[in-house]
């Protein structure tokens, strides 16, 4: 149990620290690398929740795929200009107020105690002996078959859309 707690705070620190560094770095490449760090922290949190599949997806898709693409794009585009411009816009006060409000809200819930975080009964998974991955696959190919299939349409539209938008530019 103690080990879990220590690991949780470790990963949480990774997520938060990475996030803060991502938005404060001027160099876009550095920002991207810190984002990877943050995403890795999230993956660690998934693992702690024994969601192995999500852990794997997080690493493969986000860290491995999406972030590498990010880095490619950043390196392809000349960002000297962007680096010189102001990093924070005028609305930072509003943003700060928002963050403060959310923080206050969370503290309020914590102060109210566990009642605020109560889940519906029956939400806790029955121990069916299946692992996380099997259960996910089971849901995807039975109950959630239609959304799973329709998602391919979503991807198709996204591909078509990006081709349309980019056709003459590149």
């Amino acid at each position, binding site marked *: 149990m103690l080990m879990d707690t220590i690991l949780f705070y470790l990963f949480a620190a990774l997520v938060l620290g990475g996030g803060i560094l991502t938005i404060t770095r001027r160099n876009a490449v550095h920002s991207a690398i810190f984002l990877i760090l943050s995403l890795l922290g999230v993956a660690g949190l998934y693992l702690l929740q024994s969601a192995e599949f999500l852990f794997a997806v997080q690493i493969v898709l986000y860290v491995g795929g999406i972030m590498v693409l990010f880095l490619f794009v950043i390196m392809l585009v000349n960002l000297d200009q962007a680096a010189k411009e102001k990093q924070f816009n005028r609305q930072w006060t509003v943003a700060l107020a928002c963050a403060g409000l959310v923080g206050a809200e969370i503290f309020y819930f914590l102060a*109210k105690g566990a009642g605020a975080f109560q*889940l519906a009964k029956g939400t806790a998974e029955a121990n069916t002996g299946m692992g996380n991955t099997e259960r996910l696959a089971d849901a995807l190919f039975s109950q959630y078959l*239609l959304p799973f299939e*329709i998602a391919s349409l979503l991807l198709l539209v996204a591909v078509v859309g990006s081709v349309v938008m980019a056709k003459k530019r590149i």
Partner: protein
Amino acid sequence: MYASLVPTSAEMIRFLPELILTVVATLFMVLDPLLGRQSRHVYGHFSILALLGAMAAAVYVYRDPGAAFSGMLMVDGFATFFRVVVIGVGILTVLPSYRYLDREDAETGEYHALLLFSIVGQCVMVTANELIMIFIGLEISSIASYVLAGYLRDDRRANEAALKYFLLGSFATAFFLYGVALIYGMTGSTNLATVRRAILGGSLGSAPIFIGVAAALMFVGLGFKVSGAPFQIWAPDVYQGAPTPVAAFLSAGPKAAAFAIFLRIFLTAFQPIGPGWEPLVWVSALASMTLGNFAALTQSNIKRLLAYSSIAHAGYVLVALAARSNVGTAAAMFYMAAYAFMNIGAFAVVSHLSGKGERYLKVEDFAGLGAKQPGTAALLSIFLLSLIGVPLTGGFFGKFYIFKAALDSHLVWLTVLGLLNSAVAAYYYLRILVMMYMREPGEAASRIQPLTPGLRAALVLPALGTLVLGIFPGWVLDFAGRSSVFVR
């Protein structure tokens, strides 16, 4: 165990409209490289055929209503109504697009394919009975809309509009998705009825705070999609920059679908915590009406004016939502149908008048339209009068039902303020009428082209619809009234 999960043929048939549209849209992608540029109108013809087919299918499958795909979809009266509305919006968008695409020399294949995909997304949204389905439908519809908004790649305004719409839209759907995640975490389900049972069941503890937070997050996402205040900020820029037929489409189709899921989610799953969210909808409705109407007073660009007007109209529909009753739902359904007709019609005239490159978009450019093209001006007058809410038009009855529903639910102040708002609103529509009939023809009216058959249909059909809804509202209202019950 899995036998019950294999879709039956009845379930497949309930999905027929979406299937038709998807097949045709995908076919367009294949045909595009095969057909030459000279056959650019073929896509439009096929789109209309596909949409008519889908509409017929939507009506046909209502003969055997019910759930499909393990409760993912729910083909009921409400879904059928909105399916017909969004498909109808599609037809009315395709009709003026022929001319528009010719004039702007844009490619037609992908345009129509994206339009059909967007409508598929909206159909999925309005039939979905389940948050994941709703989210995927919303995304399909939105992504296609983002691209359509920026379809004229060489137009900077369109580019900027598309980018704004895309970034802010994704931002807003993220809020929605976050809400879905919270709901799933709290109740272990994404099915609306199950969520409702979980909330009602009382096993969430005495203070289901996170249900409230989830409702708020979904409110943000949906509020953005329907352009209700305070999330309306994107609408004027996007409507102004997008190609006019697309702006017409955005103001009617995605909006109707978004309102449909707004109603379904909040009156099914979140109905038990109604007293909690009602004040928010109240404030949002009032803010949308007031902000939309008063900001529209000072606009000189007609598309921007119509964008603000569409924000105000979203406010009226939010009043119906705030009523939290079956009558309110029916009123919102009727209003969306009437609004689709009158607004698309008005945009079609704008598209017709604006000329190549959309040069003539000032309110002043309507000067003398009444003298140069009396037919077009008369039809636009019908749309504007309906937007004002003059009797014998659909807009009048729409407002009538909404405020009646609000009063039934004792929202007296909202009704009073809403009626005041609609009194203010008359002014900016009137400016256009004045320009058309009481000014000498200007450059725009003098250079106006004759109407093409497509445009003529795009103007006459909505005008007929507006009048029919105004003179015989019973036909639509009966159906809406019967289909407005989510929880039996």
